[in-house]
């Protein structure tokens, strides 16, 4: 349901069709300022949804910690590879 045509650059990621993805990526702002503002926006969204509330839960912080654990495992994978039990999987 398209009520009015929206320019490609202003569409959100979820509204972009798969075929338009490369052109949509071309319209994104990849300057350092743009990257910084994207990080800022992402941070604001997460913060306002999970942390900046009257009765927050464990989830807000726990998700960050889990994400950190996963990321650090990914970076250490080449070292952890050597602890594998079997050579062939």
């Amino acid at each position: 349901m398209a009520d009015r045509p929206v320019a490609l650059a202003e569409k959100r990621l979820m509204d972009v069709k798969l075929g338009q993805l490369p052109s949509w990526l071309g319209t994104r702002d990849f300057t350092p300022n743009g990257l910084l503002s994207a990080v800022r926006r992402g941070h604001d969204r997460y913060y306002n949804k999970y942390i900046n509330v009257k009765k927050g839960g464990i989830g807000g912080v726990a998700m960050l910690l889990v994400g950190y654990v996963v990321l650090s495992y990914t970076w250490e994978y080449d070292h952890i590879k050597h602890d594998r039990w079997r050579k062939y999987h």
Partner: protein
Amino acid sequence: MLSRLVLVSGPAFKSSGSFGACVVQASRSLHSSPQSLAPVPPLPEKGGKVRHGIIPEELFQLLYPKTGVTGPYMLGTGLLLYLLSKEIYVVNHETFAAASIGAVVVYGVKKFGPQVAAFADKLNQDKVSKAQEVKDLAMTSLAQAVEDEKKEQWRAEGRPMLFDAKRNNVAMLLEINHRERLHLVTNEVKKRLDYQIEVQNLHRRMEQEHMVNWVEKNVVSSITPQQASASLPCSSPGFLLSTPVRQMELFPTFRFGDLYLYLLWPPGRGSALVFRAVYIC
């Protein structure tokens, strides 16, 4: 939330938002966003829902239409088995450490979560109530100021009445003064006129007395040569004098034997007739 982590070392299940951080956040977004954010909207009560502490609810909602309720769990199980079997996730000493830590953390959260949450809630409640007190105090004082201002305006309305009263007072004083002077003038004029009247009275009295004396003297002197032919018992002429004379005119005499009465008419006030009697021997 972050300030709560500062307050309490362990994690908690339910907690209140951190006001300090959120104030900073609000001010930051105030400066960066084009919309005006005053008054600042209130914080949401609860955060985004998270299942089992680490998986956001959105995933379950995403998969529900296609796979029902157990979809995400199946996905999780399959993913876990895949990671283990392909040894993308390697089981080593760190796994044991992570499992122990995880167990302790989960136990701590489940047991002490509500208490910590209540404590943090109370702290925040104190802050809020203090701020509310200040606000209420300011409101009451301002309302009181409005009331006082209205009262002052009402008082100011009464000022013309005050001025009218004062004007009346001044007018009365002037009137009193004017009348006093009128009285003064009247009295002074009356005194002068009375003086003139008294002077005239004095003149007439003196003239009358003089005239009376002269008449008496002449009468006595005219009688004295006839003394020899008059009645003998009378040795010396005696004069019966009545009350003092205050007359203006002379009237004809009456003779009662040896008594000659001549009437003197008093003018003006009083209608009493005064007789001047002369007993002539």
